[in-house]
């Protein structure tokens, strides 16, 4: 192999193609998913103490809090949608001699997501 020319991928390889960039965004937005899950756990933990709980909510009820939430929402939507769109590739089901429509598998995931969100919204807003 000594006479061969070897090309190395540059550190910024993921900026070279749209498909690579979308992949990288899907991976990076998972950080927001974890971070917001941890944040929600802190909120639940503080719910025991009404003073600290309302203090946290006052702090969030600010332009900075709103902007942060908008960013997190965008990241979560991007992550969830790109993720769910991939599920039919992983889960290939057969009903007798016919493959189950991939859109049905993605659709079931979207439905589950919608139901879970609705239940949560009902719990929080009731």
């Amino acid at each position: 192999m000594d006479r061969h020319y070897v090309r190395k991928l540059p550190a910024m390889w993921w900026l070279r193609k749209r498909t690579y960039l979308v992949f990288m965004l899907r991976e990076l937005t998972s950080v927001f998913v974890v971070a917001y899950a941890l944040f929600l756990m802190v909120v639940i933990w503080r719910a025991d103490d009404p003073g600290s709980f309302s203090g946290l909510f006052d702090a969030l009820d600010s332009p900075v809090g709103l902007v942060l939430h908008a960013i997190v929402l965008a990241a979560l939507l991007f992550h969830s949608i790109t993720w769910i769109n991939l599920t039919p590739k992983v889960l290939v089901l057969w009903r007798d001699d016919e493959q189950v429509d991939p859109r049905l598998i993605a659709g079931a995931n979207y439905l589950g997501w919608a139901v879970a969100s609705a239940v949560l919204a009902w719990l929080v807003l009731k």
Partner: protein
Amino acid sequence: MAPTDSDLSGRPVVMDVFRFLPDEETEPRFQRYEIPYRDDDVVLDALNHIKAEVDATLSFRWACRMGVCGSCGMMVNGEPRLTCETFVNEFHPEPIRIEPLAHFPVARDLVINMEDFMDKLPTVKPWLVPADPKPIEEGEFLQSPAQLAAYKRFSMCINCMLCYSACPVYGLDETFIGPAALALAQRYNLDSRDGGKAERANVVTSHEGIWECTYVGDCTRVCPKEVDPAGAIQMAKLSYATDWVKSMLLPGG
């Protein structure tokens, strides 16, 4: 009217071709060729025109000219493509930049060294490993259309290695077994006549196997045979993970 050779006087196309002559140079360079082309010329025709009429020192691989042999894969304007299926018209009047398949060592000009892929391919045992060997006298293994449909898509691979050039995981870590080989492993795992799934597990589920895939999905996008290696690898992940959970829950089963 069918184009004739007289059309060659018509439109020129500019080709920027990656050149590397290992006996003469240590670094590659791009050489520009301006050649005439016909409407129905593919990039491979243009390269053959250069080789025949302009510069006989240019090296590249090709054989069938009809998208079956998988020899003429190259980077065309940064995308891994079969040059026999890529029309010059797609890019005209822009220059066309031709490079050897990405991520592989370059032997000379557009010729890559494919040893790595050739070494990896047999390690996943891409052939039928019958669960119960049966003598020829007992006849063939029968298969229903549905059993065929379960794996057929993944069996269309022509080993052109475009998927390896599209895969950044392989580009960053050449120990990765890679899309085509892992898709072929899954193709045989899905075959009703095959019983070799457990035998393939050692290699397929190793660190260099399916778990190294992060599902970028570009292999599937560039595949000229619509094999969907990315889908095959994710199916293999689910299938082997399910086996593992079962083996944990049902010891000895």
